[in-house]
């Protein structure tokens, strides 16, 4: 049972869009924040490729998306992971995939864990981006999960 993975994907899309708005509120977009935003989006795609057992060499180098490229990637990631989760059974989500990680170790992970990880990783860096936005004179995004529920009226699941 994965009670909230799809919710987490939708929350993540909302939060990343808030993050983009917050970067726009800065007199000048702080490069450290843009690097982090690019990094979390790249990690989403990296994990997507792991799940699909694709060649990971293309991720050996950072993409370093521009701000405009980041904005364009957000809905693509939403679409890709939504489609993935809608098509997956519990058994498929519990399946493990084996891959070589960034330091060359062969590791085995459950698909559901990889999906949770990549979106939890986004939250981690959004926290850092919020600090960088504040330091740059912008308005940090308030990207709590609870706020997503309130703002999207997702509320009671009814």
């Amino acid at each position: 049972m994965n009670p909230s993975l799809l919710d987490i994907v939708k929350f993540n899309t909302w939060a990343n869009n808030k993050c983009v708005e917050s970067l726009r509120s800065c007199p000048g977009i702080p490069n450290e924040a843009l690097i982090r935003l690019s990094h979390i989006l790249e990690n989403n795609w990296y994990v997507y490729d792991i799940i699909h057992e694709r060649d990971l060499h293309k991720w050996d180098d950072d993409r370093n998306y521009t701000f405009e490229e980041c904005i364009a990637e957000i809905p693509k990631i939403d679409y890709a992971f939504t489609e993935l989760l809608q098509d997956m059974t519990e058994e498929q989500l519990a399946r493990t995939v084996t891959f070589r990680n960034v330091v060359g170790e062969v590791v085995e992970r459950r698909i559901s864990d990889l999906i949770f990880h990549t979106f939890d990783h986004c939250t981690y860096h959004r926290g850092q981006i919020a600090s960088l936005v504040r330091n740059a004179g912008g308005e940090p995004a308030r990207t709590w999960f609870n706020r997503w529920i309130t703002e999207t009226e997702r509320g009671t699941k009814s």
Partner: protein
Amino acid sequence: MRAEDLDACLRCEVLTLHMNSYYGRLFQFDRWANLEVIGSLKTCPEMPRKAVALLSHYLQEQWVAHKLLTTGQATNRNDIAELSFEQCQAEVEKLADAWRNYLLGKSDEQFETSFTYLNAVGRPTERVVSDLLTDIVDHGTYHRGQIASLVRHAGGEPAKTWFTRWVKETRRGTS
């Protein structure tokens, strides 16, 4: 779910996760990550006060949520005092025990029930139990990212608190 069944789920010996084992894993991850953060703060030549304040903040918020879920009572945030580093250390283990006890015996249906409470600004708010639990874990991750930056700036070694790292270090990855 019996305690031994829950333990088996937490060790990933069964494939189908019930809600309490799903959240049980997340709170175990949260405990591990918080202990890693505490370890990272100890590596700083001088502990950054802001980082301890953030740690205190999200631990205290866990108690606010726990009280809400177990008693239905909201906490007056004016009553919340900032914890010292030593108090934070102690609270991590207390919270881990509290969440474990809270989750034990809960049915899937109980996680999907909603309840209404007055939020921090006094507005009636309706929430589903599972959503509040997800928020708690996510909130901790958010501030751990900020603490890692503060630790780095303070000359310490930031904690690497990725979920997959927890899976690896605690060998909870595969069945």
